[in-house]
């Protein structure tokens, strides 16, 4: 039998977290230099599922590329499609009927709730609580059923078209969406009793992994990562697009700068999304879902266009450089988790490894979206 390894107090060792590790929620690897349980230095290694969506963007025509966007972030896919169709519509000058914009907003918000629910379950599971995931998935299932009935798919939607939508919503969808809102509100209360007040949960998050405003700015963090650090920044409010100015909703901002603040922001965001869905269903105008006049072949005029949207994971930006051809000259996808993940290396120094994993969970990572 070999004797256990004994380390000197100042001696460090290398620990590989991932690329296949349940806590990283995907194929992400973090090379950590450890001193006992404490992290001395960390280096995030990404790119394990890099698929070069940007090159595909240059090779495919505009309509052919529609389905690529939902392969980026499999939890909140509709938000990404929204950013893409908005930039192409802006560049090509395609008018979108009001009904289509309302349905888009409702769908994106439903998708956001689904994404936050999954994150909630997975995050609590990272911290050792298994049952909240089951409750969260049960609620998420309702959303996926509703989205499936309208869009035709449960995860990788290809629902938005340039100028409108693939399919109109029916009365059944509206009815089930209306039923879902009170149900979700009840569940939220349950989650708060079950998890938010739990003393073990709070002790693992409160005051852990502080992120200053300055760090957020230097790395370009967005979503709950920025809003948990007291930055009031939500693209839906700061840079209004689509029909979001028509809705009355709040942007939850917490000043704790810790993992708990990031948790609280996302939980409050679920309620705000429900408010938007509710108002969207009330205000939903009639009319067509596709414009009458639409170019058969989409050829945006020469120029450089940018559009940012708030997805479930933060500020997602699309830069489209067009040379007037059938395919984009250059399509840059600015993914929010990429920036959010980047600040992990610097911020986790000196942290306990268990706290670092909780921190990683609070960043809400979806790896295919980082790797693109």
């Amino acid at each position: 039998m070999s004797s256990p390894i004994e380390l000197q107090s100042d001696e460090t060792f290398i620990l590989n977290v991932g690329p296949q590790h349940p806590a990283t929620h995907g194929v992400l690897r973090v090379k950590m230099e450890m001193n006992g349980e404490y992290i001395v230095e960390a280096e995030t290694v990404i790119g394990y599922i890099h698929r070069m969506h940007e090159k595909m963007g240059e090779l495919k025509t505009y309509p052919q590329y529609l389905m690529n966007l939902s392969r980026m972030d499999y939890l909140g896919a509709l938000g990404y499609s929204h950013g893409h169709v908005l930039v192409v519509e802006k560049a090509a000058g395609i008018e979108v009927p009001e009904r289509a914009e309302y349905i888009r907003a409702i769908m994106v918000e439903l998708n956001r709730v689904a994404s936050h629910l999954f994150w909630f379950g997975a995050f609590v599971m990272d911290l050792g609580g298994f049952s909240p995931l089951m409750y969260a998935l049960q609620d998420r299932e309702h959303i996926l059923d509703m989205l499936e009935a309208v869009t035709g798919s449960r995860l990788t939607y290809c629902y938005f078209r340039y100028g409108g939508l693939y399919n109109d919503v029916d009365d059944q969808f509206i009815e089930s969406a209306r039923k879902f809102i009170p149900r979700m509100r009840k569940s939220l209360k349950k989650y708060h009793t079950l998890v938010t007040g739990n003393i073990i949960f709070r002790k693992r998050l409160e005051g852990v992994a502080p992120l200053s405003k300055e760090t957020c700015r230097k790395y370009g963090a967005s979503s709950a990562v920025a809003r948990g650090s007291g930055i009031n920044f939500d693209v839906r409010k700061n840079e209004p697009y689509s029909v979001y100015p028509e809705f009355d909703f709040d942007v939850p901002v917490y000043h704790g700068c810790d993992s708990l603040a990031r948790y609280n922001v996302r939980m409050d965001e679920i309620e705000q999304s429900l408010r938007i869905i509710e108002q969207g269903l009330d205000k939903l105008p009639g009319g067509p879902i596709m414009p009458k006049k639409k170019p058969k072949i989409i050829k945006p005029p020469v120029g450089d266009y940018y559009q940012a949207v708030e997805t479930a994971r933060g500020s997602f930006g699309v830069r489209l450089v067009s040379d007037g051809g059938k395919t984009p000259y250059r399509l840059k996808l600015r993914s929010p988790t990429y920036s959010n993940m980047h600040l992990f290396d610097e911020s986790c120094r000196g942290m306990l490894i268990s706290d670092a994993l909780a921190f990683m969970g609070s960043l809400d990572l979806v790896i295919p979206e980082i790797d693109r």
Partner: protein
Amino acid sequence: MICEKTKLALQTLFPKAAPTASDVTIDTDAREKDKKKKIEPRQNGLVERDYAIHGYHLDAQVAAGQIIEAVTILDEAEFFIEAITGVDWIKDNQLEVVYDFCRYDFDLCRVVIRTRLDRNAAEVPTITDIYAGANWHERETHEFFGIKFLGHPNLIPLLLPEDADFHPLLKDFKA
């Protein structure tokens, strides 16, 4: 407000000083321009864009040596970094590096800084000393376009395999 201030600050980069009409050209409607017009390499300078069409307010093209100066101006005005990327203008034999900036503010101002480099000697100073978050963006631009960021602490492939010696987003790249 903040856009005006940033505009004035960025104008100091272009020594022709007085803000004449030729210095700040207002691009009112890009769609009215002749669609068949060839894209010509732009001269360095500051252009105010129509936000409703382009999605950003200020567009400054600077010389590669002025990048640090331009980014410092934005850092002092509390901009955050959105992304860095490249565009391959193979017909002009040039590579373009594009920097996107925005602010955590309701006074919206999106700024784009760009610089054109010679395609055969694409080198630009790193801005990681100013924005730590530029690290990954510069590594990505390096591997995709082969643009060298001078002074970057760790310029190795990020998304591509670690031994990758090709630059897939160049227009003459064949898989």
